[in-house]
């Protein structure tokens, strides 16, 4: 079935890129949070 490859590819592209982006964001925030004291973060 030719369609299956395309269908699976579109789901993989979607969720893998989102996962990679989310990982990148969390990584960046952890790195930045190391040097910012807790009381300066309004959401905590």
């Amino acid at each position, binding site marked *: *079935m030719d*369609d*299956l490859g*395309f*269908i*699976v*590819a*579109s*789901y993989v*592209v*979607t*969720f893998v*890129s*989102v996962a990679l*982006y*989310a990982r990148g*964001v*969390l990584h*960046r*925030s*952890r790195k*930045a*949070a*190391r*040097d*910012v004291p*807790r009381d*300066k*973060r309004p*959401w*905590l």
Partner: protein
Amino acid sequence: MSNDRATSTPFTKGLGFFVVLGIALLIILGIFVSPADVNQGESVRIMYAHVPGAWLAYLAFVMTAVSSAAYLWKRTRSLTWDRIAGASAEVGVLFMGISLVTGSLWGRLTWGTYWTWDARLTTTAFLFVTYIGYLAVRGLGGTHQQRARRSAVLALLAVLEIPLVHFSVELWNTLHQEASVAGRGTDVEMNGLMLFTLFLGVVVFTLMYIWLVLHRQRSLMLEDMLDDSGLDNALSERRAEATQVGH
């Protein structure tokens, strides 16, 4: 432990849990449970990932425009709006890129071609490039206020640009001799389960958007704070040097 909670709160953790659950459900329903379409066949399954993705990109760009306007309006001026605009644009570019890919995969199955010069597709490509430019402008440097002002004006200009591009591409297309393939094979007869899957996709992607923007906006804030404190540190070091020389 405190590192682990850099930008997350109980709310985002709960939200993230639901998003992951929703994605799993969407994949199960979209690929395995829901039926094939009468006209499109199996390729309709791509729609459950593509339509919510495109929806999210448009939502994100609208959010960017609204927050940019809120920044430019003096009474609500706050760098928070600027960071929301930036975070939203970033998420929007990501999802616009994703939906361009999934859309052309779908087009290949349905129309037999990856791309067609239909006004909606072309405008989407322009949106993508425009917001890549927007993100590049945000990275130009200068003070936070400079960045905010530049990018806010740019985001509002995009609101002007995109309808013009869409309109002119449409005019251009009416002259085109080749029949447009867009619109062909798009009429889907959706039964209850298919509609539910699509609806679920939109809800899950919207929640995903909120999660991503909350985290990204907070990490942008942390980075801005680091920039400021870096400047403060440099200044105080310089002052310390100066007083030492004075002694």
